[in-house]
């Protein structure tokens, strides 16, 4: 009978209460403000479920001692999908590859450099996190610093993948930060672009017509990319391999049912599970620490630094390029696809109504996805 009256009210701490409010805030942002609803809505629910005490939902199988029925649903997903085997972010990348069109990048390969330069923010945040650790302000070592810095890649699955391998305790906060900053791209990036470019540069007109890219090129590209990148950075294989596999399914045009499954069913199911896990990785005792604020601040530095890196590289390329290159598209090297490309489009048209930069910006945008996966692979190779 005692169990009948057992409830969570007595076990609810102030930290839990604050996190319940955070979860509700994520849900509000998703539904009312429509900020990344596919991510923030399940994250918000995950946060709420993680902070309602005595549910058993987060008990992982290895904690349950092998007793049948004692592991929780979220505990099972977290242990097998993220911590032990890390398969969920890889499956998301398969679906993302099936949705990605590399045409604008193949048509203008120099845009790869913008994707690379936009990873600068990751390394700024890496050093910043280590500095905080060195000063004794936070307990950030090399692994934690890498896990925090990858927020600057503005790629949710990559952030989750790397953090779950290097610093699983930080996964919830870093992933929530990454998706939140991705949702705020339209607020963060324009200011940086305006600060780093002149009006004359922002008005540069780029012809809207890219060269047409053949299906053969679109088929060869993911195959070559997979082999080349993975030979050089084997640690990037889970992400790059799945990304390019999904893309090859799409570009082959012979397996439409598989493409449809990858683009819709697979991505949707994995998104539900993965984002619930991300939210469930944010119980109060993990999040309510001073380090959380520092992680959020460093994530913002990484994001801003990446935007700056892409824009500055674009300015340099403009000087040596025979064809006009508007530096605004450099900001799209931050792999928040397609939000940062849309920011570039919007800013470009504002400065010059004739300009249609979206397709040009998609080049560095998708190059940024490859770049951030390579960075993650490099970090794993060195620190994993």
């Amino acid at each position, binding site marked *: 009978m005692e169990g009948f009256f057992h409830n969570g009210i007595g076990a609810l701490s102030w930290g839990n209460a604050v996190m319940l409010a955070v979860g509700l805030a994520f849900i509000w942002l998703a539904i009312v403000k429509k900020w990344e609803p596919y991510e923030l809505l399940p994250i918000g629910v995950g946060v709420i479920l993680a902070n309602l005490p005595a549910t058993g939902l987060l008990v992982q199988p290895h904690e349950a001692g092998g007793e049948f029925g004692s592991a929780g649903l979220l505990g099972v997903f977290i242990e097998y999908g993220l911590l032990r085997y890390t398969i969920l972010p890889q499956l998301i990348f398969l679906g993302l590859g099936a949705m990605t069109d590399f045409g604008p990048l193949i048509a203008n390969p120099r845009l790869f450099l913008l994707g690379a330069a936009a990873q600068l923010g990751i390394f700024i945040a890496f050093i910043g996190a280590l500095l905080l650790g*060195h000063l004794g302000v936070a307990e950030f070592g090399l692994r934690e610093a890498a896990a925090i810095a990858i927020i600057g890649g503005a790629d949710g699955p990559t952030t989750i993948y790397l953090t779950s391998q290097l610093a699983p305790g930080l996964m919830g906060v870093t992933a929530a930060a990454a998706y939140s900053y991705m949702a705020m791209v339209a607020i963060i990036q324009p200011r940086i672009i305006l600060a780093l470019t002149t009006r004359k540069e922002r008005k540069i007109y780029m012809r809207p017509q890219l060269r047409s890219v053949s299906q053969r090129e679109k088929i060869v590209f993911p195959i070559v990319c997979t082999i080349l990148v993975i030979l050089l950075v084997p640690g990037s294989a889970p992400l790059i391999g799945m990304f390019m596999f999904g893309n090859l399914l799409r570009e082959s045009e012979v397996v439409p049912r598989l493409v449809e499954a990858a683009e819709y069913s697979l991505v949707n199911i994995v998104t539900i599970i993965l984002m619930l896990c991300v939210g469930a990785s944010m119980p109060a005792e993990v999040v309510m620490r001073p380090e959380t604020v520092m992680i959020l601040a460093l994530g913002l530095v990484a994001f801003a630094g990446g935007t700056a890196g892409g824009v500055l590289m674009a300015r340099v390329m403009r000087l040596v390029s025979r064809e006009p290159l508007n530096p605004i598209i450099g900001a799209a090297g931050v792999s928040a696809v397609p939000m940062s490309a849309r920011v570039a489009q919007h800013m470009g048209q504002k400065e010059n109504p004739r300009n249609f930069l979206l397709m040009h910006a998609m080049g560095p945008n998708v190059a940024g996805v490859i770049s951030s996966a390579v960075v993650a692979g490099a970090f794993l190779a060195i620190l994993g």
Partner: protein
Amino acid sequence: MEINWTWGQAWQITYMSFGLVLAILVMLAVVTWLIGFIGGRKVRSANETVPEHERTPPKQ
């Protein structure tokens, strides 16, 4: 948390990783350009053996 890292290690990781990303992306840019170049040459040589009205139009 590691407690035995040095700033030398940190900078080495930083410039090696960033350099690796840049190098790989430059390689990918060159390879992608080659794919496009070879694809364009195949179209041009294929066009030389077919009647004009059946030729693949040139890339824009």
